[in-house]
């Protein structure tokens, strides 16, 4: 491409030069101004003040220039510019007409030339573009060729690789096959070796066995014996018989009898099966005939060559059938007939079914319109029905709506709005109620708390009273004692110790009631106990835990049995609280127990409270 360009460039430039020269020549005459300008640019030599004409032809050399032109023109084949000379001496006259003609001709020529030049130029351009196009094409093709060549090489490479792979695989396959064969031969050889070894071993084993047999059996082993109290009779009551040839024969006979029986049994079964199958076949045949017989007429009418003959066969078979059923033999000919006839009929049936199928398909294709019409009628009827139904339904709905409206109008609009609002109001109402309930509960709690504190105060008072009582009682006792024997003083000490211990117990009992209350809660309300058991792992100290646990284990059954809290309480609190005061002292507890027993919610809350510390 580049080469081409370098080659063409100068040519093009030269061409343009020529063109410019041509133009300079052609546009010489008509407009002097323009031509002057052109000439000024093209021919720098003529930079004189004089015009162009003066350069070629001046005043002085008109003659010469005319003659020159004449010569030139005549050489080009134009007629001479001069008139035909009349005399040799006379100066030849310039023929104006000839000049004008010449000029005209020159102009015509010039135009022609210009046209030709234009043509040539366009052709040249065309050719140039063609050239370019062809070059492009060529380049493209070259590229394509290159790529295809590359592709081909790639493919060849792949082919080679695949072939290589194939070869490898073949090799592998061969190897595997060899391996398999080898392994098989190894297996076979191993098997034979194993068998051989086995046989050898077995022979040895047999020898050993034989030897052992001789050693063990032929020694007249005294030990080998049977002790039996008395021989029993045979199961069949018969005596054993001697072995003779007769028995052998009898055995054989019996064996064959058994075998025969078995075969007979089997044959019977097979016969039965056969008979049943035959029955089925015949029934099938009958049904086929009955199925096909109504069509007998039609094919005959149609005079179908093949079916007609077969149908006649059917009739024959139908005749045969009665005979066959009376025979009931498994004779070969009968069987053949039966199977043949069945086959024939089957063929007929098949062809018939096929025909029907064809007809059906034809009908489908042809008679689609007819069906459509019928269906349309149906459709119309159906739609009418449906429309009627819809009408009825609509009426129903209308009446219902009217009724509803009547109902609505019956009550005021206000009420309806109220009704709308009623849900909200209701909810509010409910909330209020709940709120009041809460308040009440709170109050209750408060009350209970107060009662608690009161009870505690009372307890303290009672305790004080008890203390006083005890002191007085002791005093009395002491006084009494001092009057009695001195021996009893020990007793008193013991008692005092006991009382002291009980005194010491007292606070613990008081510290515990909270935990005990739930168990004290009589009639073992299940919720309560379950709560307790649940709360147990969370209870703070292990000692408490143990106590409660023991309480549960000991009193679970009792508490269930007990019905009143007063009864259960003494059992609960202690085993040794036999004296009355104890029970008195624990009364507040029992009351609390009563509380908890009465309101389960309270008990629950209480138990949960217990968990907290």
């Amino acid at each position: 491409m580049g080469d081409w360009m370098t080659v063409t460039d100068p040519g093009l430039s030269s061409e343009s030069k020529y063109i410019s020269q041509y133009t300079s020549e052609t546009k010489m005459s008509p407009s002097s101004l323009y031509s002057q300008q052109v000439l000024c640019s093209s021919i720098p030599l003529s930079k004189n003040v004089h015009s162009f004409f003066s350069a070629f032809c001046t005043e002085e050399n008109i003659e010469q220039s005319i003659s020159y032109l004449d010569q030139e023109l005549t050489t080009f084949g134009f007629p001479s510019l001069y008139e035909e000379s009349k005399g040799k001496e006379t100066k030849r006259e310039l023929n104006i007409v000839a000049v004008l003609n010449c000029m005209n001709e020159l102009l015509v020529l010039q135009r022609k030339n210009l046209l030709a030049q234009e043509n040539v130029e366009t052709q040249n351009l065309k050719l140039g573009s063609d050239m370019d196009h062809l070059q492009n094409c060529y380049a493209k093709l070259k590229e394509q060729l290159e790529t295809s060549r590359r592709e081909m090489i790639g493919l060849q490479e792949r082919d080679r690789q695949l072939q290589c792979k194939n070869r490898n695989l073949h090799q592998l396959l061969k190897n595997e096959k060899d391996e398999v064969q080898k392994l098989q031969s190894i297996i076979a050889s191993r098997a034979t070796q194993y068998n051989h070894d086995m046989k050898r071993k077995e022979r040895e084993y047999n020898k050993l066995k034989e030897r052992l047999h001789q050693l063990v059996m032929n020694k007249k082993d005294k030990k080998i014996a049977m002790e039996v109290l008395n021989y029993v009779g045979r199961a069949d009551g018969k005596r054993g018989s001697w072995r003779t040839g007769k028995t052998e024969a009898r055995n054989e006979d019996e064996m064959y009898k058994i075998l025969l029986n078995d075969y007979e049994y089997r044959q019977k079964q097979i016969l039965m099966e056969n008979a049943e199958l035959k029955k089925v076949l015949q029934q099938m045949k009958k049904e086929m005939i009955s199925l096909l017989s109504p069509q007998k007429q039609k094919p005959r009418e149609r005079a179908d060559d093949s079916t007609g003959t077969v149908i006649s066969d059917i009739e024959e078979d139908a005749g045969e059938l009665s005979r066959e059923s009376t025979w009931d033999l498994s004779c070969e000919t009968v069987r053949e007939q039966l199977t043949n006839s069945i086959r024939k009929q089957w063929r007929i049936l098949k062809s018939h079914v096929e025909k029907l199928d064809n007809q059906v398909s034809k009908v489908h294709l042809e008679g689609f319109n007819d069906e459509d019409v019928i269906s349309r009628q149906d459709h119309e009827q159906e739609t009418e029905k449906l429309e009627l139904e819809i009408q009825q339904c609509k009426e129903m709905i209308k009446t219902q709506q009217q009724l509803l409206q009547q109902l609505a109008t019956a009550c005021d609009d206000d009420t309806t709005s109220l009704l709308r609002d009623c849900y909200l109001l209701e909810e509010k109402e409910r909330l209020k109620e709940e709120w009041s309930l809460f308040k009440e509960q709170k109050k209750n709690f408060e009350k209970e708390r107060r009662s608690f504190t009161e009870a505690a105060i009372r307890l303290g008072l009672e305790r004080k009273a008890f203390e006083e009582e005890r002191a007085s009682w002791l005093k009395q006792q002491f006084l009494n004692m001092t009057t009695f024997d001195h021996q009893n003083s020990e007793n008193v000490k013991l008692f005092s110790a006991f009382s002291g211990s009980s005194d010491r117990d007292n606070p613990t009992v008081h510290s515990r009631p909270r935990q005990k209350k739930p168990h004290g809660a009589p009639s073992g309300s299940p919720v309560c106990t379950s709560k307790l058991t649940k709360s147990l792992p969370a209870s703070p100290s292990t000692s408490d835990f143990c106590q409660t646990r023991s309480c549960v284990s000991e009193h679970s059954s009792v508490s269930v049995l007990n019905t009143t809290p007063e009864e259960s309480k003494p059992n609960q609190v202690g085993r040794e609280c036999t004296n009355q005061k104890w029970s008195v002292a624990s009364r507040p507890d029992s009351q609390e127990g009563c509380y908890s027993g009465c309101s389960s919610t309270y008990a629950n809350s209480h138990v949960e409270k217990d968990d907290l510390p």
Partner: protein
Amino acid sequence: MNFSEVFKLSSLLCKFSPDGKYLASCVQYRLVVRDANTLQIRQLYTCLDQIQHIEWSADSLFILCALYKRGLVQVWSLEQPEWHCKIDEGSAGLVASCWSPDGRHILNTTEFHLRITVWSLCTKSVSYIKYPKACQQGVTFTRDGRYLALAERRDCKDYVSILVCSDWQLLRHFDTDTQDLAGIEWAPNGCVLAAWDSCLEYKILLYSLDGRLLSTFCAYEWSLGIKSVAWSPSSQFLAVGSYDGKVRILNHVTWKMITEFGHPATINNPKIVVYKEAEKSPPLVLGRLAFPPPRAAAGPLSSTESKYEVASVPVSLQTLKPAADRANPRIGVGALAFSPDSCFLATRSDSVPTAVWIWDIQKLRLLAVLEQLSAVRCFQWDPRQARLAICTGGSKVYLWSPAGCVSVQVPGEGDFQVLSLCWHLSGDSLALLSKDHFCLCFLETEQGVGTAFGQRADHT
């Protein structure tokens, strides 16, 4: 469903008499015979040593107790308790003992299978059978008790002898085309004898009573072969289970294979019912959580209840990966049993030890699969109807019937691990055997299986 109290037992020796009236069980060296219905002790016999094998005679009059360690067999009569019989095999030793079908002869196999001694209880006569083959199942009697087939080995070849049981006369003697005969089995009709090769080769041969070879069947070569064989009670089918995990069913007319039952580990067919045993955790009742738990409730809580759930397909069963480098790999069909009406076949594939497969023989397809929580120990069909009892060594017994299946907890103190079971011949009761105890499980008398099962399901 009721359970009897638990009685002592040793070495799983507990058998119903063939007439179904009695139940014999062994405790160490004592043989206890009970009434099968009332379970009251009828007789108590004392043997010389620990009993290792017991067998009722066919007429239910005698019981044979084998004391293999001592080489002794002791026979007891039920009618005459004072009657006794002792057979001493002396230095020859004893490895197997069985009754002949007439109940008057005892066949003792000596150690190393040197010979079989036939002792008669009627006469002093003693017969010997030489060259018995030491194999899986070398002695088999026909159902009617007329003939005995015996596998023999002489000069490194296998033979089968057919003897007449009434006088122990040889009827037929023929060699079998086997490398190493593993077992023989009469068809229930007593006319065909199936003989199969050892597991190294898949080969089964069928012989007529008169010694003719009827057919041979070989499913494949170069692989481990037959593992289990079972005749259908109608003698119509022969099911052959093999190490490739398939059961092949042969028919009795052409002795060709009818069908092949594979045991795939995944079940995709939605028609197959898969019963999956699922542990049922006891419902959380708040009262039960009382602390400490009451002692009485602690016992039953330890053994979880279980129930069957119908799993939706596809189900993948738990499979065992067999150790390839060990002998007797746990693969292949190890157990086969036809139902008494020949309609169903129950199988167990040893590579899927927790499952029992039940096949419909009429339709020749898989009907149901029972997947247990532990490996199936033993299963047995009810002798009267299509009802399968299964045990897995746990404290439950499982029953399957076409109507459904149930798992029943065996009640009682402690764990009663059911290792084996056997049906009473009426199908009304079932003896459940554990390592050292047994108990009887009484089922409702037949009033339609479906309703009975419904009730049973309620009980559980």
